[in-house]
């Protein structure tokens, strides 16, 4: 079997938005990764202390897995076919049949069991996304948007990665578009999704999501001063990893969203409000990176030196305030061309 002839691999910052961008573009609707991310309203924050990932609380800088696929369906009216399987062999057979029919197929997988990931990046995270574009002998040809070039993965390995059990288990999920619209009414859709996302960040009913979630995380850093220093170091390192390494990280998502706001502004007759919101969101992303830098320099401190947790809390509260301000400005933007 050959690779689907006209499929173009591209390098993107984040797996799920990258996969959706590549797939809908392949089906004739060119959408940038930033556009996919913004249109699905994927910018989020959540700090969930009672859900543990490797013994550490879950910190997410975006909406939950699969929400980009689902959000894009909803806002654009794309029809996606999504399959999960209880039987791995059946899941592999269906994949092969789809490839035979000429489809490129999106799939959810574990990171740990994909051999092409660098060893030091292989953790038990089960909500990775990739595109399978063909099969050659025993190898699947994979377009994984977080890698610069196309990858290969042996059948047994891909099977293991698709059918790993546990938190956010992929259950062999595969997906592909059935129908893609040829025209998008940006003038109508963009203002709505942008305001909805800003509201979601500002006005959450739960104290662990949105801006309130960032503040909750900041407070939990203050409480580290009473804890074992080794645990405190691991917790800080965990925050930075969730922010910088996993997917594209928290700061990364702020930059993607800033890029989306810029693109949206241009589509809406150079909307000044969106252009300045994009610039402000860029500054927020930079502040998230400053926080990461401060956290890692705190971890580096020798055992005897006191780690300054309150400085970190303060920095994070500052980030929360700056981010909240961007959303408040966004809510005030006037869209004239409705």
């Amino acid at each position, binding site marked *: 079997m050959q690779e689907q002839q006209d499929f173009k691999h591209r*390098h*993107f*910052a984040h797996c799920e938005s990258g996969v959706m961008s590549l797939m809908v573009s392949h089906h004739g609707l060119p959408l940038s*990764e*930033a556009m996919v991310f913004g249109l699905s309203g994927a910018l989020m924050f959540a700090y969930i202390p009672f859900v*543990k990932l*490797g*013994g550490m609380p879950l910190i997410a800088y975006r909406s939950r897995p699969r929400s980009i696929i689902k959000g894009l369906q909803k806002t654009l009216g794309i029809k996606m076919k999504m399959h999960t399987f209880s039987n791995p062999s059946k899941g592999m057979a269906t994949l092969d049949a789809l490839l035979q029919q000429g489809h490129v197929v999106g799939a959810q997988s574990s990171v*740990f*069991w994909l051999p092409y990931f*660098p*060893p*030091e*990046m*292989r*953790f*038990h995270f089960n909500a990775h996304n990739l595109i399978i574009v063909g099969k050659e002998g025993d190898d699947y040809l994979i377009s994984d*948007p*977080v*890698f*610069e070039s196309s990858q290969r993965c042996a059948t047994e390995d891909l099977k*293991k990665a698709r059918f*790993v*059990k*546990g*938190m956010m*288990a992929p259950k062999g999920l595969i997906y592909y578009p059935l129908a893609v619209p040829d025209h998008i009414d940006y003038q109508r859709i963009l203002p709505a999704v942008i305001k909805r996302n800003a509201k979601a960040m500002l006005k959450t009913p739960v104290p662990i999501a949105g801006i309130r979630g960032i503040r909750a995380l900041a407070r939990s850093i203050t409480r580290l001063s009473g804890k074992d220093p080794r645990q405190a*170091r*691991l917790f800080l*390192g*965990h925050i*930075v*990893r969730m922010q*910088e*390494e996993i997917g*594209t*990280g928290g*700061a*990364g998502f702020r*930059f*993607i969203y*800033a*890029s989306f706001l*810029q*693109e949206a502004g241009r589509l809406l007759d150079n909307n000044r409000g969106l252009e300045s919101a*994009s*610039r402000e969101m*860029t500054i927020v*992303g*930079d502040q998230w*990176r400053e926080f*990461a*830098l401060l956290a*890692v320099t705190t*971890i*580096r401190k020798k055992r005897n030196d006191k780690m300054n947790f309150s400085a970190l809390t303060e920095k994070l509260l500052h980030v929360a305030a700056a981010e909240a301000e961007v959303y408040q400005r966004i809510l005030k933007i006037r869209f004239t061309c409705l």
Partner: protein
Amino acid sequence: MEQDMVPQDNISTYADNKKAVYATDRSGNYNVIASSGWEIEEEATLQAVREMERLAREAYVLAARGEYSPLFFHMYNRRMDIQVLAEATGLFKWRIKRHFKPVVFDRLSEKILARYSDALGISRQKLCSLPQQNRNL
């Protein structure tokens, strides 16, 4: 972030891979830039990797002394903890903890051993023994 500020620290954890990041050019336009990594991210990743290696090393010593079953080592060597292993095997945590006792582990049925070897991705023979040296993955 501006394009010239995108870190290019060639970090070891990327193993020569690059990550796409969004950054602005001189006139403020966003582009996707390939980054060879930020040393701050590398430090955080290595901290987590070393912690997992430490757990695996300690488990190896305990298992080599016969105080714990080889399962205890293989779990950490696969970067898992009891929570992840319980989810991957569908066994209760208290049962897994019991299986850390060598006496209990030695009497496990083939069926249970198969669940472990499947979840850990190692053969039954490997599961029931310790490697010569404690190597990773």
